[in-house]
């Protein structure tokens, strides 16, 4: 097996390397990918047609919004997939044993966490909201928000975190996130445009079609953030308790 693996890996590697010889050299701005019409279009026109300076956000949430919708669905699948595979409903499901639970980490850690958690969460919300102008967006913000709850669970025990973010609530959050995203697309559909064609929303949003795109991106980013937050936490809580959701790390 080892030898076979080695041979296979080397064949694959050599094939890939053999192809690099006719790649444009690294960083060449005239390479086909960087100089092509599509990427030029994104760089030059994005701000004009969407009013969003962060091209990545614009491309992510608008030009390739369909991809991103499925990206969110992927996260969602991972969340419910983990539950489907791992979740153990036989234990005390609804009534978590709050008293006899773990109490998380030591005092100092708990103190520090309680101090920084609000900042993390506020920063996460900022990242979600400010994705148009700076790095970030729904996904990054969502992960941070989810991570803040993970931190909460680590510091104060899972039960504490579950009191805020119960399994039921997690699922609702996750579903609502996708629902916001897809529903926004369907709204475009109902208003006569293609799916996810935000420009037709200018009839119900302030501003022109470009601003409508800009606002819509914010909406779908929020949707993504919802799902990602919920699933990140659900992932952690299931994986750290072998699906029992009773006792954290």
């Amino acid at each position, binding site marked *: *097996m*080892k030898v076979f*693996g*080695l041979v*296979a*890996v*080397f064949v*694959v*590697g050599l094939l*890939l*390397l053999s192809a*690099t*010889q006719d*790649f444009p*050299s*690294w*960083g*060449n*701005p005239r*390479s086909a*990918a*960087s*100089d092509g019409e*599509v*990427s*030029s279009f*994104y*760089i*030059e*026109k*994005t*701000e*004009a047609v969407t009013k969003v*300076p*962060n*091209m*990545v956000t614009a*491309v*992510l949430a608008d030009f*390739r919004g369909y*991809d*991103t919708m499925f*990206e969110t669905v*992927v*996260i969602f*699948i*991972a969340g419910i*997939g*983990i539950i489907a*595979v*791992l979740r153990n409903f036989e234990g005390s499901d609804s009534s978590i044993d709050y008293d006899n639970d773990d109490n998380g980490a030591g005092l100092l850690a708990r103190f520090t966490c309680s101090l920084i958690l609000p900042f993390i969460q506020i920063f996460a919300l900022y990242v979600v909201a400010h994705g148009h*102008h*700076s*790095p970030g967006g729904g*996904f990054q913000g969502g992960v941070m928000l989810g991570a803040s709850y993970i931190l909460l669970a680590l510091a104060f025990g899972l039960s504490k975190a579950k009191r805020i973010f119960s399994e039921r609530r997690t699922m609702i959050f996750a579903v609502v996130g996708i629902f916001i995203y897809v529903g926004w697309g369907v709204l475009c559909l109902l208003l006569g445009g293609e799916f996810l064609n935000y420009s037709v929303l200018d009839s119900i949003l302030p501003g022109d079609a470009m601003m409508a795109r800009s606002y819509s991106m914010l909406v779908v980013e929020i949707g993504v953030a919802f799902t990602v937050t919920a699933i990140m936490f659900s*992932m952690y809580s*299931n*994986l750290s308790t*072998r*699906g029992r959701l009773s006792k954290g790390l």
Partner: protein
Amino acid sequence: MDPIIANFIEENIVPKFNYWIYVILMMIGLYAMITKNNLIKKLIGMAIFQTAIILFYVSIGVKEDGGIPIISHHGPDHHQETEAHSEAGSENLKHNIIDKDKYANPLPHVLMLTAIVVGVSTLGLALAISQRIHKSFGTLEEDEILNKLRPGGHD
């Protein structure tokens, strides 16, 4: 050094160092996925494998003097831009002032955001599956699992 080799290095390795490293990382990851015995190790290999591909994509989008793909209103183009703005937002002029060589290609970045998400989803699911395996077999070593299956199974 042999001039041919030196020439080769100069032409194929130095300007494409990123591509070489990505291939090496990918080989490491792939090798771990195929040959490692421990399931968690396989998954670490898988994560390395996936990040290597992401590295490759990101390397596609790099430009020699390109910055981050966020249009800056305070950069060197500032003055021109204000001029453009003053001309009642004339679309054409506004486009002309964006020098595409100054910005990295955003498309690979977008794609890789999705790929990272896919990667973490796969990792999470795979970890859940390996926990189930540990629950049923009591071990995460592949050879031990196969040994446990052998006497009872008709496979």
